[in-house]
C-alpha cells in the first residue's frame, strides 16, 4: 500500500480575466518531502501557493491535504487544515506596525488562540526569543521595527513567524530572491534546518538552481499553466527535458519563447 500524499492537486485551473495562469496543474507532495517549484517570472508559481493557502479561489480542480478536499470542506474545517500551513512570503510581509518580537509573537498567538492556550505576552516572550535565536537573530533585534532590518533579516523574521505555530506544511515563496549569494545560502540552510527539525512537508518556489538543490529533494517546473516536468532536485541540471534544461542553464535559445524581449 502506498502512503497517501500530504498534498494532492488535480486539474487546478485559475484565470484572471482572459489571462489563463494555471491550466490544469497536477501535483503530489509526499509527506516529509521538500518540493521545489521552478518556472519563469509571472508563470503562476505564487498563484499556485495562494490557491493552496485559500487566499485565491481557483476556478476548477481539487486540492487535497491529508486526503481532505479543502475546497469543498466546511469553512471551519478548511480553516483548521490551513492552520497547519506556515508561509514565508516573497517580501517577508512583516507587519510594519509591530516590532520584530511582536511579529514573531503574532505567529505564536495564532496557534495558541486556536488551542485556547495562554496568550499573555510575558508567557510567550521567552518562546519568541528562542525562535529569533533559532533563525540566527540576536535578542536586541526584537525591539526593532521591520523597516529597520535588511532584506535578509526580514526573511529570517518571516521564517521565525512562519514556524512559530509548528506547522507541518511550510511554503516558501522565492526565499532567496533579492539576497546576496552568501545570505541566500544562509537562509537556505535555515529553511532546510527548520523543515527537518519540524519534520514538515515543504513547497519552495525559487529561480536559483543552487538554492533549489539545497532546499529540495523533489523538483517540478511550471510552464504555460502546467507542471511539465517532475523529478529529483538533483536531476534539475540534467533533466533531459529541453524546456527544463533551457531554464536551468539560462540559455536564450530553446523551446521557451522570450515573449517580452525587454
Amino acid at each position, binding site marked *: 500500500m502506498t502512503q497517501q500524499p500530504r498534498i494532492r492537486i488535480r486539474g487546478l485551473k485559475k484565470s484572471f480575466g482572459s489571462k489563463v495562469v494555471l491550466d490544469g496543474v497536477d501535483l503530489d507532495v509526499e509527506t516529509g518531502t521538500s518540493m521545489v517549484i521552478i518556472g519563469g517570472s509571472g508563470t503562476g508559481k505564487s498563484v499556485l501557493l*495562494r490557491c493552496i*493557502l*485559500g*487566499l485565491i479561489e481557483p476556478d476548477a480542480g481539487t486540492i487535497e491535504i491529508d486526503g481532505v478536499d479543502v475546497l469543498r470542506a466546511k469553512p471551519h474545517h478548511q*480553516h483548521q487544515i*490551513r*492552520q497547519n*500551513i*506556515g*508561509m514565508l*512570503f*516573497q*517580501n517577508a*510581509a*512583516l*507587519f*510594519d*506596525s509591530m516590532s520584530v518580537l511582536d511579529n514573531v509573537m*503574532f*505567529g505564536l498567538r*495564532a*496557534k495558541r*488562540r*486556536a488551542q485556547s492556550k495562554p496568550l499573555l505576552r510575558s508567557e510567550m516572550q521567552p518562546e519568541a526569543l528562542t525562535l529569533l535565536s533559532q533563525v540566527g537573530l540576536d535578542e536586541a533585534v526584537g525591539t526593532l521595527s521591520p523597516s529597520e532590518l535588511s532584506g535578509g533579516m526580514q526573511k529570517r523574521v518571516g521564517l521565525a*513567524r*512562519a514556524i512559530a*505555530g509548528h506547522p507541518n506544511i511550510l511554503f516558501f515563496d522565492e526565499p532567496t530572491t533579492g539576497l546576496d549569494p552568501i545570505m541566500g545560502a544562509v537562509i537556505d540552510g535555515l529553511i532546510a534546518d527548520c523543515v527537518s527539525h519540524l519534520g514538515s512537508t515543504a513547497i519552495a518556489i525559487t529561480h536559483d538552481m543552487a538554492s533549489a538543490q539545497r532546499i529540495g529533494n523533489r523538483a517540478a517546473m511550471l510552464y504555460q499553466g502546467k507542471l511539465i516536468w517532475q523529478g529529483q532536485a538533483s536531476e534539475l541540471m540534467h533533466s533531459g527535458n529541453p524546456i527544463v534544461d533551457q531554464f536551468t542553464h539560462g540559455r536564450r535559445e530553446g523551446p521557451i519563447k522570450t515573449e517580452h524581449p525587454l
Partner: protein
Amino acid sequence: MNIFLSPFVHLGRSTLSILQRVGSIALFGLKGLSGIVRPPFYAAIFGRTLVEIGFLSLPVVALTAIFSGGVIALQSYSGFRHYHAENAIANIVVLSITRELGPVLAGLMVAGRVGAALSAQIGTMRVTDQIDALRTLSTDPMKYLVTPRLLAAIVALPFLVLIADILGVFGGFTVAVGKLGFTPESYMNSTLASLNAMDVSVGLIKAAVFGFLIALLGCYHGYHSKGGAEGVGAAATATVVTASILLLTFDYLLTDLFFTS
C-alpha cells in the same frame, strides 16, 4: 452598435457599475460591523485607532470650528445690523454650528485627515501581502483591521463634533464680545436661550454616521487597492473624494429626516 443607442448603452453600463460598487461597499460595511458581535474583538487596535482619530484630528477640527463660529458672527452682524436684530447673532451662531457646521466641517476635516491615512495604512498592508499574511496566521483581516476602525470612527466623531460645537460657539462669542461690542452676559444669555438639545443630539448622530462612512470608505479602498505604491495613493485619493461627497449627501438626507416634519 447603433451610434444613436450607444450613449444609452454607455449610461446603462456605468449606472450598473456604480450600483455594483455601492453594493460591494455596503456588503463590506455589514461584514465589518458584524465583527462587533462575533469574537474575537481586538480591543487594543480599537483603542489605538480611537486615539489616532480623536487626538490627531483635534487641532484641525478645533481651529476650523473656532474660525467658523467667528466668521458667522461677523457675517450675520453685517447682515442683520440694518434690521436692529443683533441679538439674533448668538442664535444664528448656535443653530448653524450645532446643526450643520460642527458635524459637516469636522466630518470633512476627518475625511481628509483620517480617511486618507486609513486607506493608505490598509492599502500598504494589502500591496505588501500583510493582509494575506494575517490570513495565513489564522486571523480574519476583516475583524482584525476593519471592525475596530469602523467602531473607533463611530465613537470618535461625535466626540470631535461636541468639541467643535463648544469651540464654534466660543469663536462666535469671542468675535461678538471682542469686536462687535456685545456684553459677555447678554451674549451668553442669548446663546443659552438658543441652545436646543435636539439640535445638538442630531448633530452627534450625524457625526456618528459620518465617522462610519469615512472609516468604511477608507478601509474599503485600502483593502481593495492594487498595483504597488501608486495604487495606494489612488486609494487614498478615492477615499477623500467619495467620503466628502457621501458625507454631504448623507448630511442632506439626515437633515431632511430629522428637521422637516
